[in-house]
């Protein structure tokens, strides 16, 4: 009898705890999902009464849901357009969280060295204007590599993704012709090539197709040991993507007040040119003040302790000066 009373009491207490727990829901980008789920989990361990759920449904879905007010916060790999901001019912702050970069991966038979790419070579390969690895332009940038006479197959992402956005954003910046014909977006009309689904699809096709070149996220390439080339940045240095050179890309760019900034083709001397922020979209005037306060606390924690966890998961942390600016913006703008 006493035992069963105890059990009932325990259940009662547990239910009380569960009821006292505040749940926050977010949705959006897939690229930072491993980082976010680690953060939300750690934060839950520190504050057992707060549970933050995150669904990686894609940036487009994240923007749609947060602007419609169906989730407490959103997340995106590409900043919202002016049109989207104008249409939004909720006023949002873009909060940069981590950085990612996109690297050119290739499969050239007989070439094991690291290939150097100039912006011009990349743009012309992806427009189909350079169609063979023996092209003199490639040989000129890589004088110590002997390239085979092998046709180039371009591999791109078939699913809409932030990775494609960053890659095409870079090509648009360095090639007016690309900007005019294809432009930038999460899905674009590719002039040449075949599409693979996801990073794994692109990497799989590159591994299978001799003479192919494609683009994958740095994290994916590092974790799966896929060889990738270095890219010439705007100060004329060939830079291989790494966490440091990615963070460097953000440091070299002037930050606008709303943090909606593209950091591709960054002017920094040691900056890797194909990098991007990923953002959380936080309502500045939340209807539920309690949830707003919790989110604000979380953001401060994320900008301090959270940033120290990034490198273990191969994400590039924000530069120090950006962290200072973001903290100021969070303090001032989120009520």
């Amino acid at each position: 009898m006493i035992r069963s009373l105890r059990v009932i009491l325990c259940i009662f207490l547990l239910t009380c705890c569960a009821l006292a727990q505040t749940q926050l829901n977010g949705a959006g980008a897939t690229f930072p999902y491993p980082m976010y789920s680690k953060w939300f989990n750690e934060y839950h361990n520190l504050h057992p009464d707060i549970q933050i759920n995150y669904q990686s449904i894609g940036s487009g879905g994240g923007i749609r849901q947060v602007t419609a007010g169906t989730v407490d916060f959103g997340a995106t790999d590409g900043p919202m357009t002016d049109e989207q901001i104008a249409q939004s019912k909720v006023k949002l702050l873009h909060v940069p969280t981590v950085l990612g970069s996109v690297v050119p991966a290739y499969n050239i038979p007989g070439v094991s060295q690291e290939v150097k790419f100039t912006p011009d070579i990349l743009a012309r390969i992806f427009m189909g204007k350079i169609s063979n690895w023996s092209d003199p332009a490639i040989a000129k940038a890589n004088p110590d590599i002997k390239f085979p006479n092998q046709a180039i197959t371009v591999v791109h992402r078939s699913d809409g993704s932030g990775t494609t956005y960053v890659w095409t954003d870079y090509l648009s910046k360095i090639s007016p012709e690309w900007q005019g014909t294809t432009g930038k977006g999460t899905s674009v009309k590719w002039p040449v090539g075949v599409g693979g689904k996801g990073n794994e699809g692109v990497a799989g096709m590159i591994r299978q197709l001799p003479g192919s070149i494609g683009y994958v996220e740095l994290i994916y390439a590092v974790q799966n040991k896929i060889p990738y080339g270095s890219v010439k940045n705007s100060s004329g240095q060939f830079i291989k993507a790494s966490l440091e050179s990615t963070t460097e890309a953000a440091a070299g760019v002037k930050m606008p007040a709303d943090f909606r900034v593209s950091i591709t083709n960054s002017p920094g001397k040691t900056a890797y040119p194909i990098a991007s922020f990923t953002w959380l979209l936080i309502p500045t005037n939340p209807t539920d003040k309690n949830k707003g306060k919790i989110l604000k606390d979380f953001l401060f924690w994320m900008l301090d302790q959270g940033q120290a966890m990034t490198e273990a998961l191969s994400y590039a942390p924000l530069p120090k000066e950006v962290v200072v600016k973001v903290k100021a913006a969070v303090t001032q703008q989120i009520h």
Partner: protein
Amino acid sequence: MSLPRAVTHLSRMSGTVNEMNSPDHFEPNQKPATAIPTLAQTATRRTQRAAATALQRIRQSHPPSSRIPDAAFSVLILFTAISVFAIVVFVAWQLYDKSRLSLHQFGLAFFYGRDWDPVNGDFGAMPFIYGTLVSSFLALLIAVPLSVGVAVYITEMCPIRLRAIISFLVELLAAIPSVIYGLWGIFVLAPLLREYVEPFLAKTLGWTGFFSGPMYGIGMLAAGIILSIMVIPIIASITREVLTAVPQSQREAVLALGATRWEMIRMGVLRNARIGIVGGIILGLGRALGETMAVTMVIGNRPEVSRSLFAPGYTMASVIANEFTEATGDLYLSALVQIGLALFLVTLIVNALARLLVWSITGGTAGRARA
């Protein structure tokens, strides 16, 4: 529709045939010559009588109430039947409603437009419709002869012990998740195609124009082959069931007329079962039209209409799966929903054509044996 009808016909026939012809015909109530009932016979009679009186008692004690459950049951069944209609209408309406923006913008030109440019907001569905149809028909071209062959072997020629094993293996193919087929396609099938099959096809059949251009391994041909492997179990198992339902007397009659085994199968079995087989093919086609994951992994995802089967293509289901999550902008979303509408219409038209084909084969009558 045609499949069950054919099967019931055939089974009804086989029932009568068995009663008349089978040598070990057994009637439990037949009186032995001595007119003294055996112990077993008395027992059955007694239980039969007991059951009959019990039924009678129920009928007499609750005559009106037995009608209420019947009426309720028929209403319930009617609702389930109507729900199918309701779902189809609801889906069609939703697709139309959500694609209004794009319908308004592009009109019917959407269905034959060849451009797909999300950046500039220019959308056309032609390459996707083309890709869906070509990959599905390619799949049927490969799968139908194979599956009918498998079914004929299982029902007509296979040693009994092997029969269960082969049937099991065929059905196992249906249980493999499509993402596994896709991965297998990228890592095993595509290199095989690129290294051996495509160069061979280009050399021997390159003049047709269907097998030319650069060989990636992935592309329309790979998608067709993967799809064919995925629809084989559907067509093969339905065909097997239909062939099993063909009465034994048909086979015996054709053989008795001096037919060879091949003639017996052609005239006595396949001819009788053709409606059921077509039903199986339609089900397989439905699977092929809607398959998404495996196809998108091997087709190359390039929205272009190309005559060569080596070239990459794109299907309607794939583009929706690929681009819906990251589609920003109302027109883009609306265009993707309209692709869904196009897929719905194409499926409807293809199924209607298949039904017409069945009617034209049978001349409007059900699948009766006329061999």
